[in-house]
């Protein structure tokens, strides 16, 4: 009986991990598709304020709106995107964006529990970090770093 319960628990954990990874891959594909198709309007809708861009906390909505519109108009694309890794954010995660009190506080104050940090790799070897939170069927972007 005990063995059965343990096997079931292990199966559940493995299934959950696979489920989370599937979600991460789906998010990467979705966001990459929006970038590559030039759909800045949808990206703007998905972006939460304040927004973390590299080490900068963007507080004016019009600025993040301009960011998405202008980089896509400039021809920014994500070629052959692949999920490199996905992690739940923790106390140290902020350092991947920038080691500063402001970024640390941003992570603490503005990122809801369950926010994922996704690392996307492109065909050129460049990487992008995204801060994503799924809530029901809605996908929200809290931060973008790169490409680096």
């Amino acid at each position, binding site marked *: 009986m005990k063995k059965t319960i343990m096997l079931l628990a292990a199966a559940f954990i493995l299934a959950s991990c696979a489920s989370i990874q599937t979600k991460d891959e789906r998010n990467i594909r979705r966001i990459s598709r929006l970038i590559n198709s030039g759909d800045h309007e949808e990206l703007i809708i998905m972006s939460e304020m304040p927004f973390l*861009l*590299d*080490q*900068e*906390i*963007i*507080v*004016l*909505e*019009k*600025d993040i709106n*301009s*960011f998405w519109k*202008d*980089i896509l108009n*400039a*021809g*920014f694309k994500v070629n052959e995107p692949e999920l490199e890794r996905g992690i739940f954010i923790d106390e140290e995660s902020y350092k991947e964006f920038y080691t*500063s*009190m*402001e970024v640390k*506080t*941003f992570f*603490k*104050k503005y990122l809801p529990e369950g926010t994922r940090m996704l690392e996307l790799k492109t065909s050129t070897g460049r990487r992008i970090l995204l801060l994503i939170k799924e809530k029901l069927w809605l996908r929200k972007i809290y931060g973008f770093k790169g*490409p680096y």
Partner: protein
Amino acid sequence: MKRLIILGSLFILALSPVFSVPSDVVYTEGETYIKDKTGDEFEADIGDIVDTGDTVTTGVDGFVELDRNGVVLKINPDTVFTLLEREENKEKTDVITLVLGSIKFRYDKITGKEPKIATGSCIAGVRGTEFSVYAGVDGSSLIVVDSGLVSVESEGETVELSAEEGVEVNPGEPPGKKFKVPAGRIDYSTWNDEKLGSMLDDPIIAVDRLKKRLDFYISNIGEYYSLFLEYSEELSKERKKSIEIAKKQGEDASKKFYNEVLFPLTIDTGNLVLNYRYYTLAALSLRRYVAGRLYLIIKTKYIINLNDIKYRDFLDSYNKLLLSFEKSIVPRLVEADI
């Protein structure tokens, strides 16, 4: 601040701030928000009060009019300003800190206790009755007087403006030469677009100017914070003395000591905190609304070619500004400021 030495007997007590700043929202349209000092943000509505520490933001179609005791502030679209306070001549003074956009001021009467207007590049002292202040995308400012007098100070130099005169100030530089401005002839968008153009042409100069302004804030923070540490230590000693006096000499002597020494010292120490916090928050505004936006604009411009030498040079310069900010401003910030 070096003037602030306790001489002993006489002390001007300023227990409560003199609110000479318009703070009632009397009209709004479009997107307008008030963010209070705890970080809560709400849509501005008629009847709302703008308090010290609050930030008012208007969107591209937003407009807010504030009115209190006959002083009118017309806050134009795409504007961000914060109401701060600092100590000056032993009194708390309100400082309207305009980081972006433009505000038109109209005073129906001058009381002598008008607030200062601060931007990313200068401080304006108001003796005027109608004037406008414009804060540019690169941190520069344009002050235009319709009527009355306004003095504009930056980098230790002051320019006095009278009716139909204006002056531009770049961050980290003294005021430019004043010029004649017929009423209603300034178009903020056009002026701001020119500033944006200059910034894009040479972002390193833009960063260098911001760095100079940051150095000004850092210098003031350093001065006030050092004094604060001295006064805090003194306050701690005097508090212990106060307890001894109460024990040995009784209540009357303790009260006298409190009124003559302890209370004034407490006020002065508090004022020092007010002042270093004022410069700290002004530096944070510069970082958030000018430097941060400059970074976003330049990154966007070079997003397809982040290896471009001009972008790398800009990053080198920008990182120096960040390091300076991290070293000298961040230690004076608290989480609630972010």
